[in-house]
């Protein structure tokens, strides 16, 4: 009680950032008190096994709350630059994950409780991302999709060109839903986005549980499979951000479940459920390119295997027509609406595979793992856990695939997943390439559905009696896989909301950039053509409603304009060719190397860098004749190039 009073006193006297650090010192005794009370309470009232089970689930809600609180303290300390903060982040994640994992592995929860637990896990880990950026979007991709949604609201039409990510406006499913929610409810777009992705996360957990249960015939195995799925590298952060894949993937999982549910159903029910699946597939197609391709591929694989291995005894449905529908719908959308997708995805995939081949043949050295763009190597324990997670997955896949064959070989979808799991080593190999690392990371999120199913098939219910540490060992293994997923899935410098760093994506989103974007919108009006670095481009293009000019969007070398130490013919040509009206500079870029590996965009001059941007690159605009410096906030400056034409002397 004394500690509680102390906390209340601190909360009254000091702002959150300060008392978050102080609270750590007081938290331990408070938690111990509460845990002790909860334990004695549970012991005293455990009159029946059912009541005890129910209370255990409630207790896990409580432990998840503690985990989240510890993560929040870690985040608050990181934001204020108080160390240590990262140990609290990892501790909170473990407190969130391990008790739920323990319960899902146990035999005592009934089916409803297992469903509650997977939802608790999914939403709890979703909140970890929200705690990272509670006041709005900070992840790089989120601004691009924010822009598409804002354009829908501003123009009342779809497919307006998106200067931040041109492909985003061609797949507007997420943005349509978010814009509708924002417009009707009055919520700001970012709040509406958080709600939509949260509902998507809820759907994902339910759909995956039911899909795995349908395949495995066991709620326990299904629960463990969802648990293992949540250990994938994209789960905590990437699939929790406001991005099209975060919504498309849950919908795809629901479509797969709906089709899987048709098996063993009465013909009429199966037919109607197929219609539901088709509606969901129809929503996936305009929401995300890769998810729609992978869903179509999975359905084709399922249909082909089902045709090759018919099993009338099981009355399995073979989704031939849904597969044809998915392929036709995906191809039609690609051809009629989103042809530019090929130009967007092609370089990633082909470039990655080409680089992989060159790495294999020794023509080039591979990308260094666990090393960021500035050459900083991850701590030893992170490398050990990251490698350990991969070894555990690869080691478990062999018996896992055997278990799938032994237990589920009569189910075409299970065999399709088993085949997909074989793609995991390929996704790992792509991580050794600079151009394919992103493709590999994205691919693993999909492959983990198959991997989780195979590992759960082997790990749950296998008869390995006589080893009393089996369950703790499995729990430790899945915890290592989970931690390894977080380590591999998100750059160490971005996991916590640490203080500002230039060109470091979420860590570069701070008040100066936000206020400058807001100033540009209110004082210059929307739709001005800007040349900007990576961070300010995202802010100006979203909150500022400006139109950044880029190489990837406009084929104009604005990176050269921004990074060159002098203002010469090439720079003026970029201004004129791109009809650049304004240039924003950030003097902080000259202080540190870019953690994201680049200041402006891929292929910029000076990559890879061994020293920060020269000050001359920023100051050259002060010396340019006829250029106005119309804005200055100490870090950011905006230059007006509207008075410049080809005849302007240099």
């Amino acid at each position, binding site marked *: 009680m004394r500690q509680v009073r102390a906390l209340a006193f601190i909360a009254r006297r000091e*702002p*959150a*950032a300060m008392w*978050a650090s102080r609270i750590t010192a007081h938290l331990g005794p408070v938690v111990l008190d509460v845990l002790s009370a909860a334990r004695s309470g*549970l012991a005293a009232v455990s009159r029946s096994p059912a*009541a005890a089970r*129910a*209370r255990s689930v*409630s207790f896990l*809600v409580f*432990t998840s709350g503690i985990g*989240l*609180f510890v993560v929040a*303290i870690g*985040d*608050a300390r990181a*934001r204020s630059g108080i160390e240590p903060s990262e140990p609290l982040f990892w501790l909170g994640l473990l407190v969130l994950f391990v008790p739920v994992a323990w319960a899902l592995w146990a035999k005592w929860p*009934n089916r*409803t409780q297992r469903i*509650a637990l997977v939802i608790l896990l999914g939403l709890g880990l979703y*909140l970890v991302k929200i*705690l990272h950026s509670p*006041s709005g979007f900070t992840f790089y991709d989120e601004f691009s999709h924010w822009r598409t949604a804002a354009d829908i609201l501003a123009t009342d*039409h*779809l497919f307006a060109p998106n200067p931040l990510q041109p492909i985003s406006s061609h797949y*507007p*499913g997420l943005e349509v839903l978010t814009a*509708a*929610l924002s*417009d*009707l*409810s009055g919520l700001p777009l970012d709040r509406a986005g958080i709600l939509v992705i949260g509902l998507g996360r809820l*759907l994902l957990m339910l759909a995956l549980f039911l899909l795995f*249960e349908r395949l495995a*015939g066991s709620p326990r195995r299904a629960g463990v499979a969802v648990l293992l799925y949540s250990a994938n590298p994209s789960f905590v952060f990437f699939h929790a951000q406001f991005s099209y894949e975060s919504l498309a993937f849950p*919908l795809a999982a*629901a479509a797969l479940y709906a089709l899987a*549910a048709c098996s*063993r*159903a*009465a*013909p*009429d029910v199966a037919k*109607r*459920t197929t*219609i539901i699946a088709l509606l*969901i597939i129809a*929503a996936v197609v*305009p929401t995300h390119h890769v998810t729609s391709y992978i869903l179509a591929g999975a359905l084709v694989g399922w249909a082909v295997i089902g045709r090759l291995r018919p099993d009338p005894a099981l009355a399995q449905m073979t989704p031939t027509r849904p597969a044809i529908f998915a392929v036709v719908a995906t191809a039609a959308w690609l051809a009629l609406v989103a042809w530019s997708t090929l130009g967007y995805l092609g370089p990633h995939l082909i470039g990655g595979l080409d680089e992989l081949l060159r790495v294999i043949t020794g023509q080039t050295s591979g990308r260094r793992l666990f090393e960021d763009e500035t050459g900083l190597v991850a701590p030893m324990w992170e490398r050990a856990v990251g490698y350990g997670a991969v070894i555990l997955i690869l080691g478990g896949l062999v018996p896992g695939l055997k278990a799938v064959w032994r237990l589920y070989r009569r189910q075409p979808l299970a065999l399709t997943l088993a085949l997909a799991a074989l793609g995991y080593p390929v996704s790992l190999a792509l991580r050794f390439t600079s151009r394919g690392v992103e493709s590999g990371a994205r691919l693993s999120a999909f492959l983990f559905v198959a991997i989780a199913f195979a590992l759960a098939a082997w790990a749950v219910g296998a008869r390995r009696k006589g080893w009393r540490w089996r369950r703790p060992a499995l729990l430790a293994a899945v915890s290592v896989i989970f931690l390894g997923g977080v380590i591999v899935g998100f750059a160490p410098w971005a996991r916590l909301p640490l203080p500002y760093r230039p060109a470091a994506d979420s860590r570069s989103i701070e*008040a100066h950039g936000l206020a400058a974007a807001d100033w540009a919108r209110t*004082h210059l009006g929307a739709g001005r053509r800007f040349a900007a670095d990576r961070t300010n481009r995202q802010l100006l293009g979203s909150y500022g409603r400006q139109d950044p000019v880029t190489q990837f969007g406009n084929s104009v070398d604005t990176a050269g304009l921004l990074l060159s130490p002098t203002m010469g013919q090439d720079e003026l040509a970029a201004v004129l060719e791109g009809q650049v009206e304004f240039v924003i500079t950030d003097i902080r870029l000259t202080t540190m190397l870019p953690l994201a590996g680049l200041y402006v965009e891929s292929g910029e001059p000076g990559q890879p860098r061994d020293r920060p941007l020269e000050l001359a690159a920023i100051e050259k605009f002060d010396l*340019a*004749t006829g*250029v106005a*410096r*119309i804005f*200055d*906030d*100490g870090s950011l400056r905006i230059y007006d190039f509207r008075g410049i034409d080809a005849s302007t*002397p240099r």
Partner: protein
Amino acid sequence: MLRRHADLAGAAIATLAALAASMAAPPVLRTIATVGLLIVLPGFALLQVLLPGRPVDRAARLTLMLALGLATPILIGIGLGFSGTGLGFRRETVALSLTLTVLVALLVAYRRRRASDDPAAARAEPAAPDTPMASPMRAAGPTKVGGWRADPPSLALLAAGLLLAVGALNVAGGSAAPPDDLVQLWILPGTAGGATVGIYNGSPDAGQYRLEITAGGASIPVGGELVTVAAGATWEMPLLAEATDGLRGGWTATLYRIDAPAVPFRTVWLPPSDASPNP
């Protein structure tokens, strides 16, 4: 009879109420109504049409309802975008389209139920057997569903867990303080050679500054000695061309902090109109 269709009637009333609330209601109620109109009610209504009765268990119904609820606004929104009717993706068109979809779906569901009630119709077209899309575990044996007892310790633990989550959001959300150095200075061209100069003080405290304006190298007096800008406030002043005859030299505004009066804090300028070098 009435009780059998109470859910459909209730959904229809809820749809109309949600439509009204989404147009004008207090923020929280409006958000709840919108989530209902946008996601819950379309999912429920379409599920009633496509899977009437109880052929699936509660978890499966919830999953399919949520999936349909998320998919329907996407499909309607895309449809509005492609419709070519000029209606566009507006608040009214989205809300009315969704309302119509839900009401039509509820009507179809009602007619189907009525048809299945009609003995003649039942003879003509036998209703599909109400075979559960049994989960494999149902096939293996009955499962105990539920098991959540709302006894005080459970509720206390649940409440404590939720409070901790809310507290976590509070701790994470409350720790971002505005930076001390967020002070913007700007100058924008006005009409007839004039300009507007402005200051925004985004720091947590009020700031006192000295603003120096020059035009063509000549200093222009700015109101009083000091400019005071409250925290979060904006200060603006028009610069008239008539105030000086040095316009061809361009405008320059320099801001100085009171505690460092000799060091320029922020500087902005508009270039001379004859394209001579910048100030």
